């Protein structure tokens, strides 16, 4: 029996008459039965091999599509990356411009503020070394001296309570003046960020400079 006939029999392509004849031959011929069985098993194995190869090819297509999609996403990512960099660059440049404007504003504002460093009785509230350094524009030295003065603890040798209370008030006033002077020094130095923090601190305190501090904050 030729292979074409077996193929036609197994795939149901034979006519009714042909099929009946083939079935009869199969009943009578053991060798033909074996031949048909082997043919069918080989065809099944071929189909299984084809099916697996088909799925592998399909998977390669899926992988290629996923790769292409990832590439597109990556390209989109680059565009976003560049845009982000551009925006960040603008912000940095803008930040510098803003910073410079603030430095100038704080500096010129502080130059226009006079520091009244004497009491009603003509005495000095803060050490004259500090005020002279401030007036002569030695701002680093001014800050160093202020820092030292700020570290000094309250001391009163007078045993009288009223005198002690007075000394305490004077000590507090000195500290308020030191802070105001420090703020003005920083403003003149252009350290506007630190100066603003101190202005806020003074504005929120009971310091006699709280109104000046608030005014400076409002204007700056």
């Amino acid at each position, binding site marked *: 029996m030729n*292979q074409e006939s077996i193929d036609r029999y197994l795939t149901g392509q034979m006519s009714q008459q042909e099929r009946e004849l083939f079935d009869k031959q199969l009943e009578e011929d053991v060798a033909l039965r074996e031949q048909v069985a082997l043919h069918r098993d080989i065809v099944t194995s*071929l189909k299984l091999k084809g099916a697996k190869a088909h799925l592998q090819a399909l998977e390669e297509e899926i992988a290629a599509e996923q790769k292409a999609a990832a590439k597109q996403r990556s390209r989109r990512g680059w565009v976003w990356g560049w845009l982000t960099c551009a925006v960040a660059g603008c912000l940095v440049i803008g930040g510098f411009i803003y910073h410079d404007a603030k430095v100038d504003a704080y500096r010129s504002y502080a130059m226009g503020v006079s520091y009244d460093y004497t009491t009603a009785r003509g005495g000095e509230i803060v050490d004259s070394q500090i005020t002279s350094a401030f007036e002569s524009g030695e701002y680093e030295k001014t800050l160093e001296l202020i820092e030292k003065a700020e570290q000094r603890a309250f001391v009163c040798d007078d045993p009288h309570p009223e005198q002690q209370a007075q000394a305490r008030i004077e000590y507090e006033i000195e500290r308020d003046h030191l802070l105001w002077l420090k703020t003005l020094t920083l403003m003149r130095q252009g350290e506007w960020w630190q100066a603003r923090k101190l202005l806020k601190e003074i504005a929120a305190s009971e310091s006699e400079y709280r109104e000046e501090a608030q005014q400076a904050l409002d204007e700056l």
Partner: protein
Amino acid sequence: MTDPQIIREIAEGNQRAFTELYNMYRAEFIGYVRKSFRGGDDTIIDLYQDACVALYENIIKGRLTVEQLTHASLKTYLFCIGRNKLVDMYRSREFKRRRDFIENIDYIHDKLPWQEEEPSEREVVIRQAVAKMTEPCNTILLKFYWEQKSMQEIAQECGYNNPDSAKTQKSKCMTKLKVYITKQLQRDESGEYR
């Protein structure tokens, strides 16, 4: 395409139905296996392909028919086969050593309408012979039996002068394969190589 349509189309040799079945449950199957297996995607995809081919085999051999869909869906059968293949993998020495499994898993027997069994020695011999096929036999036989192409199409695609030349080549290949397999089976029966 519905489950009965897929079974009918695959039984008739429609590749498109088989492709649709594969694509339909691919992502879901990967997610299902990942619950108990932490190995690579390539291993899971290979497992899914083997499950699809096993389902295909049961359809073309008539073990899975439209009538059996009253018990369970095609997806249930497919995932059941896949899970049992995963258990085979789990029990293999290689994977036990690699500790790729998150939990202990066991076979599912009750959901399948057929008995899953290892291929017979005869089937192994035939599959090995088919796997070893070289060109031009590999292409011409796969085009005819898997892709179901006509001799006219095969002649055009493979560069034969005419359909008769392609038919002669196909017949030679099939005869060669049968002779080789018969010899191998006779050797096995006579106990040679044992």
